[in-house]
């Protein structure tokens, strides 16, 4: 039975494009991202942004590694953390080769959640440094976005 894990984090305060989170299974496991939450925690303002869920071929310059939480505490440690790890975006070195799988236009005041049906999760290719990223592709102003990704291994 698949084991589920989650991470949360924010992107670096930089002009878009700015990666929020990357889940890189690499060659260790195939991650199936099925739940995505996007929002903004700074003081609300009328700013718009386009977020994307992308399949990336390199994880770029690693920022900090957010803690990976198993949804079932009895599950083993995620394989993702033991190989390439996951990270919040840094101010430089964005992941390369992004292929947008989902476009989410969103106002800064709003929160959006996407839940994939079983069998329709976003899957990363089992190749080195491949992963699924959540990024702020364009925005009307520079602001920090916060996201949560939940995946199954």
């Amino acid at each position, binding site marked *: 039975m698949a084991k589920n894990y989650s991470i949360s984090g924010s992107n670096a305060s930089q002009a878009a494009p700015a990666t929020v989170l990357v889940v890189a299974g690499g060659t260790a496991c*195939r991650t199936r991202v099925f739940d995505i939450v996007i929002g903004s925690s700074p003081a*609300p303002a009328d700013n718009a942004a386009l977020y994307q*869920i992308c*399949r990336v071929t390199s994880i770029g310059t690693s920022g900090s590694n957010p803690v990976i939480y198993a949804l079932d505490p009895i599950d083993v440690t995620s394989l993702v953390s033991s190989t390439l790890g996951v990270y919040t975006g840094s101010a430089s070195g964005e992941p390369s080769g992004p*292929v*947008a*799988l*989902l*476009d*989410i236009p*969103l*106002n800064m*005041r*709003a*929160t*959006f*959640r*996407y*839940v*994939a*049906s079983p069998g*329709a999760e*976003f*899957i990363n*290719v*089992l*190749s080195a440094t491949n992963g699924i990223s959540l990024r702020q592709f364009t925005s009307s102003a520079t602001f920090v976005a916060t996201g949560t990704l939940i995946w199954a291994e």
Partner: protein
Amino acid sequence: MLVVPKHSILRPHGVGILADPDLPHEQQSDYRQCIHCQKSWKVEPGSGRLRGFCMKCNGPICGPRCSECHGPFEKVCEDIEAGRVPGSKIILSVPYRI
């Protein structure tokens, strides 16, 4: 009588839930996913966007750029991981008697 909202579909591939303080309640939208590349889109009848359906893979496709069939995405994944060209066929030798 069962009422089906205009922007919903049977068996969506995903659901998007939008919570906006300017709206009186949450908005839910159905999403479909391309069988070839996994690109997902919000179902919007009358949007004018050209989508399609792959009769080989028996699933929706995101548009003309995905009209060439290399197989379902899981098959493409396996091809890439095995170092094969996506969509290549594996020819098995079949024993025969002359």
